[in-house]
């Protein structure tokens, strides 16, 4: 703690040359933030309280919460919102479990050709969305797809016939979401490798088996990385822009909320209604993120409370 304060003092002393160097250096981002984020966000917020219709901009009036109330009363909007959030919530646990499992495999000391294996496990995460969709559609194709012919067929399971149906579509979506876990997997793996081996040896002497060691030592120690991955995946699923994000790849099949917003804005040109839909979605997502941050102190392990950047 004292060392930290000293460095900070030295830093301030050393770099106190001209007060506004920092501001000048970050000015590209600051300008970009105001122009590409803040102004669009505020104007979309203002738009969402009006009945702005692109073909008759002159008649625009302030309508208060009208758009929001209409959207929340509309049964089809509620269904789409519910389905989108439910789908995202079912994807994230699967993604986290798979990330932890793969990270454990890849940081295991018995693994041969570590670098090649890591690259191969990471590979699906860099596949362009253009390739991604059709690759999975080909894979689950009822007649020629390998999913039926190689896995479901020999196991005697009824072959997936209605791949365009909603259940099969959701299953496919969850399954294919495993192909976006690369960055999170590597981050958890890095955290696993950073655990000192001595504590494992001590536990080994005490007679703890591999599974017990994993559950009681490895897992709690990597919770910070798991939390980071959770935020990463959550943001990606809800359309934020984090590392290697591909967005909702299957949105047209699932008529997710994205699709509804784009339809309202770019087909019916009702900008007021469209932006209010986007804001409703955003509020739900933010509520979720805030809940996660608030509950994080109960399950995320922080070694030193004062070590925060």
């Amino acid at each position, binding site marked *: 703690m004292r060392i930290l304060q000293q460095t900070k003092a030295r830093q301030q002393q050393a770099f106190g040359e001209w007060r506004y160097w920092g501001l000048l*250096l970050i000015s*590209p981002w600051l300008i970009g933030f105001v122009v590409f984020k803040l102004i669009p966000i505020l104007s979309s917020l203002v738009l969402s309280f009006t009945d702005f219709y692109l073909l008759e901009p002159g008649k625009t009036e302030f309508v208060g919460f009208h758009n929001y109330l209409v959207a929340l009363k509309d049964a089809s909007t509620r269904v789409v919102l519910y389905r989108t959030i439910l789908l995202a919530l079912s994807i994230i646990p699967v993604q986290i479990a798979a990330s932890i499992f793969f990270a454990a495999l890849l940081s295991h000391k018995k693994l041969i050709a570590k670098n090649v*294996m890591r690259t191969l496990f990471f590979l699906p995460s860099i596949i362009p969305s*253009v390739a991604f969709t059709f690759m999975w559609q080909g894979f689950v194709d009822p007649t020629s797809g390998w999913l039926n012919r190689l896995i479901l067929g020999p196991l005697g399971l009824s072959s997936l016939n209605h791949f365009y149906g909603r259940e099969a579509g959701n299953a496919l979506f969850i399954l294919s979401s495993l192909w976006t876990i690369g960055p999170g997997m590597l981050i958890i793996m890095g955290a696993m490798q950073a655990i000192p081996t001595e504590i494992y040896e001590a536990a080994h002497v005490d007679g703890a088996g591999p599974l017990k060691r994993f559950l009681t030592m490895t897992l709690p120690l990597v919770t910070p990385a798991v939390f980071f991955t959770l935020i990463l995946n959550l943001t990606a699923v809800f359309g934020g822009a984090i590392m*290697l994000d591909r967005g909702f790849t299957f949105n047209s099949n699932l008529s997710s909320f994205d699709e509804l917003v784009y339809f309202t804005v770019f087909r019916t040109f009702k*900008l007021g209604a469209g932006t209010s839909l*986007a804001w409703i979605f955003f509020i739900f997502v933010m509520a979720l993120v805030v809940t996660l941050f608030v509950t994080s102190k109960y399950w995320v392990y922080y070694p030193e409370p004062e070590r925060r*950047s």
Partner: protein
Amino acid sequence: MIMNKQWPGLFQKVRSLLPFNLLVWLVLFLYLLPILSMLATAMMSTEQLGDKHSPLYPARIVTYSYHGKDYQLYQVPFDGGVKPLALIKPGAKSSQFIDPQHPEAGPILWKGGWKTLTGVYEFHINWQNFTILFHSLPFPAMLRNTLFIILVGEIGVLVSSILCAYGFARFSLPGGNLIFYILIATILIPDKITTVPTYFVYVIFFHWRGTLYPILLPLFFGNAVYIFLLRQNFRSIPVDLEEAAMLDGAGPLRRLFSVILPQSWPVVVTVSLLHFFYMWNETRVASLYLTTTDLSLMPISFAVQTYQSRLPIQNVIEASTVVILIVPVIILFLSQRMFMQGVIVTGAEK
């Protein structure tokens, strides 16, 4: 003698390592199965895709030449077993076959629908799908567009993000950490919120529909994720070196280029790779601002996406996915060690 001592050791080592690695290979095989499936389909002929009995690998039915014409071989069941016969006259109820072993015996009549028969297959790669693709899309022009977008974008995003990250890492800012928290918060905001106003400013105010400005311009104002990654890395470099440079009279930019950057090129490479993968994938912004008919500006991913939506032949579509995949996969394998180390550091620094 040495051999005798080494062999049991090696055997034991293999025996202790093998079960675990077999498990990993099985998991990997299942995980990457759609990629293998795609590769196989991309090399299949359209006939094979329609043939239920065909193998999973790209193949064609073996042919037999009889009186100067080629006939396909099928496995025909008889009382005594199954014989590979050449189909010379297909019929719904009964068909005529020739036995390649005894062609002089003449045609054999077999009762039953020939479509229920399984062919005699041999491994054969059908490159035609790729030929069709290369004839229908202007690949040199598309690659040139993509390279232009990626190059300009890389320069813009790297220069602006590095400057901003240095500002966040080493200088005191008005408002303290608040600006940094805003930076983090912007990462979490979905595009949806900002898409609508930005779209109408670009299209109605600036008339930028059908140009590359909406794709390239925002990149020159830094990217919050990259700024965060670079800042975390810059902060881990000891300040002593910079102090020494300062005593020699080096200003902030000089210190950034001569002290900070030489020590942080792994993270700079990671960021530029992340941006490369992102731009190679980019179709969302392109599909909003570029017209689908004008090929002269199209980056490769968007052009292939447009092409795929117009062409419902599965094997050609899979061939196009193979083409779009090759470049990022090669880049990933060339840069594997550094890139993955960079991503790991990202999480560790949090």
